[in-house]
């Protein structure tokens, strides 16, 4: 499962090193939309495209705001599906 940082705070987004308490903190500040949280903390923007962290973040939002997880729409995912080297993309143009 997830790692734990030095203060015992679970790391939710491993790609961008974001812990559970950081997520709870922005929710407490009033940012409850997953798109807003994504942009404030860069969760879901790492090489795994959020496959690891987004489901966990959705559960935290549900817990903190008292809504059902099913009511939360996951954020839009962005292509490419896996990171692609510039050299490969560039040569595809030729």
């Amino acid at each position, binding site marked *: 499962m997830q790692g734990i940082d030095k203060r015992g705070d679970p790391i939710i987004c491993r790609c961008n090193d974001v812990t559970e308490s950081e997520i709870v903190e922005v929710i407490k500040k009033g940012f409850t939309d997953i798109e807003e949280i994504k*942009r404030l903390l860069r969760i879901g923007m*790492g090489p795994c495209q959020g496959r690891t962290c987004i489901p966990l973040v959705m559960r935290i939002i549900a817990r903190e705001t008292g809504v059902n997880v099913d009511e939360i729409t996951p954020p839009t995912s962005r292509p490419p599906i896996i990171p692609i*080297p510039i050299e490969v993309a560039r040569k595809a143009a030729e």
Partner: protein
Amino acid sequence: MKKGYEVVIVGGGIIGNAVAYYLAKEGQKDVLVIEKNYISSGSTGRCAGGIRQQWDSEANIRLAMGSVKIFEGLEDELGFPTEFYQGGYLLLAHTPEHMEWFKKRVELQRSLGLDVRLIDPKEAKDIVPYINTEGLLGATFCPTDGHANPFYVTFGYYKKAQELGVHYLIGKEVAGIEVRESRIRAVILSDGSRVEARNLVNAAGGHARDIARMAGIDIPVNPQRHEILVTEPIGHLFDPLIISFKQGIYFRQELNGGVLMGYGDPEEPWSYNVRSTSRFLFNMTKKVTEVMPILDQVRVLRQWAGLYAMTPDAQPIIGGVEEVEGYYQAVGFSGHGFMVGPKTSELLAELILTGKTSLSLEHLSHKRFKEGKGKIEKAVI
């Protein structure tokens, strides 16, 4: 929700939030912002965050210089991080025509007090060692240009405006505007509800023309898709945002190490389409490696697109209109509304509150198109 407001703002991008903040800061707190998706969901949240003062037109230079001054103190003013970073902008010229144009531009910019200079390829390479100088004739560099985090800046204005008493309606769409006896009266939401408004601010970005039309006003603002991509974070390679007019591209390194890059496709039609294409991925990577070959080894992480709100002279339209009293707009930024957002919004709030502005907006008025006065801004990418 109250029955009516002194000012209703349509759009929760940098402009809508900043205008709301400056109105409230100057004492007008009876303000409602309506955003149909979420804060920063429009062009603002899709933009590259670049902040440049090196423009062609005096109006753009002044707005950008005024905004940089605001950006410098914004973190303290809003009590919110902005990631504002002044790494400069390096603009590259590969043809004699571009060199001539660069020289003229620098002269005008310097006359307005901007710290900018024309440099030779060697100095450009000193600033950015990884740059390919083959065929490069010269460059301009302004060290006080830079970038900021568009989400942070917008969320910062949003939080502060709320703290000062501004109301927000998020997830509601404006579907109509009531105008009677040539004066703004109310806005109608898509769920049929009605909110009275003495003044209305059109800050709807790529959708600004639709909002104006609801008030019976036609504005020459058209949406055009612009694509962008970001690489995985890599070690620090370069400080400035780089624009190469030869390839028509811009790219910069984010504070976390990712490299953001984009270009404008002159063939792109007017539309609301914001889908990404593989064509962009292929062409962008080819163009950027012509300017910085070392990027070949880096991997692309994500690509997306947003709208530029284009006007015929590529300059924004800011202020009121003669036809409808109480209607105001800050629209048509043609791809540079983030960087001029702070000063523009401050001036628009000033206009709404006092009827005049401390910096003339005459060249950016709606009237200019009727009078045929617009001077085309050529430095848009």
